[in-house]
């Protein structure tokens, strides 16, 4: 089951060209949706305005070399290691979902474009990675949905209460879960596989087609915001925050040891 390319099995009923066209349409939907999101919300204009303001207001100038170093740090710490999260649980869940999504999407594209039919045997590692990626998304995503989500943890609402902010995570979990169920049923030659394939396509289309209304675009603007934050620390503006305190050097009063507890 884990070494079986589900898309090659599908080529008997759906031509590979149709599958490949669908993947290309999804890529176009993400690009167009992100551009629309940037223009509609004015996030790019806000970012560059902030950038300009921060650059001229700082006591120090950030040189080209330092800027490259900050960009590399942003990439390594804030993007690749989800360094902006303050909660370890949220960070682990995000890393599982993020890397799971990357592995899942890349292996899907490679299998659809490189090994679309049983005539070109798929290396066993690709479907295996596809399964691992999908299961990582499920693990991180359902953990987030049922236990970490702030509506449940801080606001005390039911885990089943759905609102517009859930569009991204729900369509992602729906797409991946239905895709894994479809692949499982396909290896069993079950008649239900076609039903789950239909649901999988609907959920996937919602995931990639809803970019302007979901938080899908955060993977583009969050790194930009993290870089701007690092630059503001480097040039001394620190987003107007006070500098780190140099005193007191120890707890309690400077004159006497605390004795009131």
């Amino acid at each position, binding site marked *: 089951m884990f070494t079986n390319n589900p898309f090659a099995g599908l080529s008997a009923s759906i031509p590979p060209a149709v599958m490949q066209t669908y993947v290309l349409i999804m890529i176009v939907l993400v690009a167009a949706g992100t551009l629309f999101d940037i223009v509609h919300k004015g996030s790019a204009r*806000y970012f560059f305005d902030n950038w300009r303001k921060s650059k001229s207001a700082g006591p120090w100038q950030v040189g080209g070399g330092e800027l490259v170093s900050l960009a590399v740090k942003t990439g390594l710490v804030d993007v690749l290691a989800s360094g902006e999260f303050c909660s370890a649980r949220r960070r682990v869940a995000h890393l599982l979902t993020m890397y799971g999504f990357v592995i899942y999407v890349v292996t899907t594209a490679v299998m659809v474009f490189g090994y679309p039919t049983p005539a070109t045997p798929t290396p066993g590692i690709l479907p295996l990675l596809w399964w691992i990626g999908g299961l990582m998304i499920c693990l991180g995503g359902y953990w987030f949905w049922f236990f970490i989500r702030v509506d449940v943890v801080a606001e005390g609402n039911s885990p089943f209460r759905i609102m517009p902010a859930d569009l991204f995570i729900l369509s992602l979990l729906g797409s991946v879960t239905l895709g894994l169920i479809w692949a499982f049923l396909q290896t069993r030659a079950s008649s239900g596989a076609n039903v789950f394939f239909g649901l999988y396509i609907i959920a996937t289309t919602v995931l990639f087609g809803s970019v302007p209304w979901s938080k899908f675009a955060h993977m583009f603007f969050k790194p930009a915001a993290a870089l701007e934050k690092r630059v503001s620390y480097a040039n001394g503006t620190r987003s107007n925050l006070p500098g780190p305190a140099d005193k007191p050097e120890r707890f309690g009063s400077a004159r006497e040891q605390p004795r009131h507890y």
Partner: protein
Amino acid sequence: MPTFVYMTRCDGCGHCVDICPSDIMHIDKTTRRAYNIEPNMCWECYSCVKACPQNAIDVRGYADFAPLGHSVRVLREEAKATISWRLRFRDGREKNFVSPIRTTPWGSIKGPAEYAAPAPEDFAKQELAHEPEALNISGGLPALRRDQLKVGVV
């Protein structure tokens, strides 16, 4: 001076929702970021500003005494047990303050849930829950002896 949230800084962790005594910090239903649902009910306690691990919450002064363009920013450093304030006025003047906020290390005070629940008979006592142990006073609660009292009073 009601609070507001920088959406690009907020990661929706919910600390401000937990701590707000007015229960006016909520999570936005579309963006899943914190926001102040009722700024005119904010009593300016700064709890959310200090608690935010991303420093994403700021304070906006009322225009009659703090014209637009000023900034009040707070940085809480748990390891140092300090809180720092940076006030920047519209004319460019700046004031910085640092205050100690703890006499014990961060996280060293036990929360109510970490103590055993009081027994039913404890409710009839004069002491509060877990007193006198919780007061950390060796030898029990301080009390005056009879010979220390004024003659004729008792």
